[in-house]
């Protein structure tokens, strides 16, 4: 399959996002199963380390792609596809943010604020991280789809 520079770049970002997300999930399962103590001190360094890992791996991946496929060029078609995919991804992110807020309001209103408020924060943080990842993956998949199908 003949992939353009943009498609290779998107595919690289998609793979990086999925790999890092699976790594994050494996660490979160450690919290959920109680293998690791659930503390805010343990959660935030994990989230921050994930952000740093994503940035570094994305930079390295794009350097490799640029070295193999030449410099990236973007034109009106790339911008249109980006905008079309981002519009749907934004909806996905919006739904995720709504669920996080709904979760917060519901648990508070129903008096379900657990003895451990940290558990609530843990879920909200993870709902948001899952939403961000899902929105990104949706955007990448839609971009690849639009490049293949045409717009």
């Amino acid at each position: 399959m003949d992939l353009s520079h943009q498609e290779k770049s998107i595919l690289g970002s998609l793979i990086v996002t999925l790999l890092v997300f699976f790594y994050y999930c494996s660490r979160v399962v450690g919290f959920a199963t109680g293998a690791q103590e659930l503390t805010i001190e343990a959660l935030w360094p994990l989230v921050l380390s994930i952000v740093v890992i994503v940035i570094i791996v994305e930079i390295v991946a794009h350097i490799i792609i640029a070295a193999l496929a030449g410099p990236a060029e973007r034109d009106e078609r790339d911008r249109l596809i980006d905008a079309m995919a981002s519009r749907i991804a934004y909806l996905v992110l919006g739904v995720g943010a709504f669920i996080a807020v709904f979760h917060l309001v519901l648990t508070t209103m129903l008096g379900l604020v657990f003895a451990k408020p940290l558990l609530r924060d843990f879920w909200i943080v993870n709902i948001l991280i899952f939403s961000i990842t899902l929105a990104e993956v949706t955007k990448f998949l839609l971009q690849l789809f639009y490049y293949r199908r045409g717009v």
Partner: protein
Amino acid sequence: MAKKCRVRNRIRELRFLAGEMTQQELAQRIGVTRQTVVAIEKEKYSPSLEVAFRIAAEFETPIGDVFTYDP
């Protein structure tokens, strides 16, 4: 799966008449990527009016001779 647009074009033919101009050459001259020229030729993408005018100007022909609308 390909989404066909209703804007038809004669770019392939005009490239041939212009001394077998390559897609890369045309792309550079009108300021888009080669992939976009490929997509326009395959009628998988309708270019902006500005790019359409630039293509017509490149072939020194009226825009209506390059692009036609098939309702």
